[in-house]
């Protein structure tokens, strides 16, 4: 009962945002530049949330997320450009193939812990990128031309589904199992939680949505090249969730929106862009060392306020 209430509340909130933005787009208040920025924000939010389930919830430090995004991007591009399938089919296949890739990478590498896992996932992501770089079918280093098909609606629906699935997972019994692994793997094992299974499940779900985000990304920029999915992209996604607060879904969403917006505005100053971006990161981490939200969610903040109010 309580859960379904939150679900409908969330859906209504999403609809309101959608209606407002759609209205602004239709009336011309937001031009193409802003529309493009909104799509980029949506894609980055999806990437951040999909990595959040791996690092924030399950505590497995993976820094190869761009690899799964690349799988999704290329698979969807092959579907639409080479095989002539509709875009939506491309998106779904991108998610499925990326999830399979996540399974193949996750099963052997999730036996590793901490730094070792980070290096292994980084390595896998580079392997994926180099495979695409050397396959002529997808254009090699020159990249692959892709039609523009991603609209604001596609991107927004993608974000809503991603957040819904991942927050439901986190609040479920399975999600609590994953949280227990993050907190203490040995204790989780001793409780009878199948730690390997849950780590792989979280990794596969994360890869799936990274693949979908990759598909949306591919159909937004007219061309995809392997260099777009190098380890810098993985770090960019990692920065969103660290800055948002590891373990906080709303934090990672806010950080992704915030940093994407900053980085878009700073494109007007190409020389100093990365310097300003880095300074912003340093300042935030100095003053909020556990990220913007710590492990808290937005609704926790309201709860505390309400409690304080009733006591006063």
């Amino acid at each position, binding site marked *: 009962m309580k859960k379904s209430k939150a679900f409908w509340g969330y859906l209504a909130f999403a609809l309101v945002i959608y209606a407002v933005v759609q209205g602004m787009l239709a009336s011309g208040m937001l031009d193409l530049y802003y529309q493009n920025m909104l799509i980029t924000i949506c894609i980055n939010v999806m990437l951040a949330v999909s990595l959040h389930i791996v690092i924030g919830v399950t505590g497995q430090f993976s820094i190869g997320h761009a690899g799964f995004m690349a799988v999704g991007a290329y698979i969807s591009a092959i579907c639409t450009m080479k095989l002539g399938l509709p875009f939506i089919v491309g998106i779904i296949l991108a998610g499925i193939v990326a999830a399979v890739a996540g399974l193949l990478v996750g099963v052997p590498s999730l036996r590793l812990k901490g730094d070792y896992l980070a290096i292994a996932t980084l390595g896998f992501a580079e392997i994926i990128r180099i495979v695409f770089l050397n396959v002529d079918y997808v254009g090699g280093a020159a990249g692959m031309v892709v039609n523009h098909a991603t609209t604001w609606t596609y991107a927004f629906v993608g974000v809503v589904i991603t957040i819904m699935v991942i927050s439901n997972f986190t609040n479920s019994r399975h999600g609590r199992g994953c949280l227990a692994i993050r907190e203490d793997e040995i204790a989780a094992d001793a409780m*009878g939680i199948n730690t390997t299974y849950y780590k792989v499940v979280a990794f596969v779900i994360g890869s799936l949505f990274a693949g979908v985000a990759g598909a949306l990304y591919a159909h937004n920029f007219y061309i995809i090249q392997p260099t777009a999915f190098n380890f810098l992209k993985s770090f960019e996604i990692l920065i969103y969730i660290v800055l948002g607060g590891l373990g906080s879904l709303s934090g990672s969403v806010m950080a992704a929106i915030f940093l994407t917006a900053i980085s878009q505005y700073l494109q007007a100053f190409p020389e100093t862009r990365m310097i300003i971006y880095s300074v912003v990161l340093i300042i935030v981490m100095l003053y909020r060392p556990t990220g913007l939200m710590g492990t808290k969610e937005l609704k926790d903040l309201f709860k505390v306020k309400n409690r304080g109010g009733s006591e006063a």
Partner: protein
Amino acid sequence: MLQVNNIDVFYGNIHALKNISLEVNEGEIVTLIGANGAGKTTLLKTLSGLLKPKQGTITYKMQQIGGKPAQAIVKSGISHVPEGRRVFANMSVEENLELGAFLRKDRDGIKKDLDHVFELFPRLKERRKQLSGTLSGGEQQMLAMGRAIMARPNLLLLDEPSMGLAPLIVQQIFEIIQTINKEGTTILLVEQNAHMALSIADRAYVIETGKIVLSGTAKELQESEEVKAAYLGGV
């Protein structure tokens, strides 16, 4: 109830447990005492499935459990309170206890056991919404034990419940161990605090560098000259 026959456990090349055999009967408190690095924790971890024996058999209620995954062993009724408590620090007391019942599906039974744990440990009830990382050491030990009880075990494996706790708290913890035992849970207790452990146990084993060197009733061992000299600090 539990029978361990000639098991050998290795960490890579290190031979940690050598040909260990022991037995725990239904309703007993059995204690395993020994110094640092003797292999006490290794033995418990092997029993609960966190480590796999290379040789030998572990039989629990007529079933082979040696080498089975931990979740299968928890399901069969063995619950492990790991060394150093290992509570889920960023979760509330209540959430920790709920995770103890992770493999159970009977909601009503879980609720009943939750109340039962709060009866055993009133302190936990007071702090049910508090993050467990902010509890004191003794409270965390109580939480770790409560969490293990939530799996409704027949056999409870306790790894050094007295570690790092004040003598008064240790006494409380040991009283609760006896209560849990009287309620029908068999207990295998690993301890460095031999004096306390022997005072509540029915039988005991002494482990030294991976081998069982002595065994007998707790009373016999309390009076044994070797144990007195090595573990009880008497002459």
